[in-house]
């Protein structure tokens, strides 16, 4: 029994070691954005505890920033819920993408679903666990590390607040860079070419028509529609 526990710990350690470098860009980006969130909450009268609770329980980057305006206007929980559904709708497609990858992972699976975010999805759907690294612990490491970065950065932002005046302007570009690189990695597979280009084109069209604040859901619908039409064309 004890030996088995030891083996498990070694497996987790190895998975962490392998996963960590993949999460360094996320760590950088989340430190900047998470701290900015902590500072913003503080500036609106919500202390570190509230910021950390929001980050730890809801864990949904962009929606948390939207929710700041909900916290500074009359109490409207239903509105908060509906807005969160819309802003987070993209997770639906991440889930469909991860159905196969998260299969048969036992208890860990619940945590992986709970913490599935843009950054975790982009790494976990692009990088394969190598031989010798347990798939379950690899996905777990990526998800856990990213989750910790976000919650910890929120905490830091809350307590350090405006004491820090380091120039980090533009550092959040690190997440854009991460998505660009992982997009390129996915495009290396030939069968991914067309879906990748469909994703880019549908999103640009949606951005032009609906503008920066309303583009995501229409883009998802365009993508879904185009992919389904393409499947039909491939089948016939």
């Amino acid at each position, binding site marked *: 029994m004890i030996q088995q526990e030891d083996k498990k710990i070694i497996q987790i350690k190895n998975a962490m070691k392998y996963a960590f470098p993949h999460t360094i860009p996320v760590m950088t980006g989340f430190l900047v954005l998470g701290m900015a969130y902590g500072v913003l909450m503080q500036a609106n009268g919500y202390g570190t505890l509230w910021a950390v609770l929001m980050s730890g329980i809801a864990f949904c980057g962009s929606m948390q920033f939207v929710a700041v305006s909900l916290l500074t206007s009359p109490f409207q929980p239903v509105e908060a819920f509906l807005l969160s*559904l819309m802003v*987070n709708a993209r997770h639906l497609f991440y889930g469909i993408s991860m159905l196969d990858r998260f299969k048969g992972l036992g208890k860990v699976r619940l945590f992986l679903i709970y913490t599935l975010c843009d950054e975790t999805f982009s790494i976990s759907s692009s990088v394969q666990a190598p031989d010798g690294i347990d798939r379950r612990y690899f996905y777990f490491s990526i998800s856990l590390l990213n989750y910790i970065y976000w919650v910890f950065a929120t905490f830091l932002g809350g307590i350090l607040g405006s004491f820090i005046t380091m120039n980090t302007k533009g550092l959040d570009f690190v997440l854009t*860079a991460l998505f660009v690189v992982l997009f390129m990695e996915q495009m290396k597979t030939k069968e991914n070419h067309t879906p990748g280009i469909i994703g880019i084109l549908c999103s640009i069209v949606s951005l032009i028509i609906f503008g920066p604040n309303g583009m995501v859901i229409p883009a998802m619908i365009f993508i879904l529609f185009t992919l389904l039409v393409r499947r039909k064309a491939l089948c016939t």
Partner: protein
Amino acid sequence: MYLTQFQTFSIILSVALGAMITRFLPFIFFPENKEPPQIVHYLGRVLPPSMMGLLVVYCLKNVTVLQAPFGLPELASIFLIVILQKWKRNVLLSIGGGTVLYMFIINYFGI
């Protein structure tokens, strides 16, 4: 604090509930002990590159293409990322290089 503690906590839970529904729904609809329909299999295969494309465009959604600086800082940085990635195939180098260039451009030119 604008809201009471109870109200604040309710808002946190409402936001969390909305987020969790979007995360759990696919896994509830297609449980792992049941074979999902072929069409879901197909979507699971093709959605990742499409969604990565969406994420890239989403990150650039506020870039002003028609006004100065015409998206040039982003364009130059992404160009460097692509070159570095094709050349060295080192993910961290590509991301680091692109980000440093971006920070340099916008801070140096005060954009």
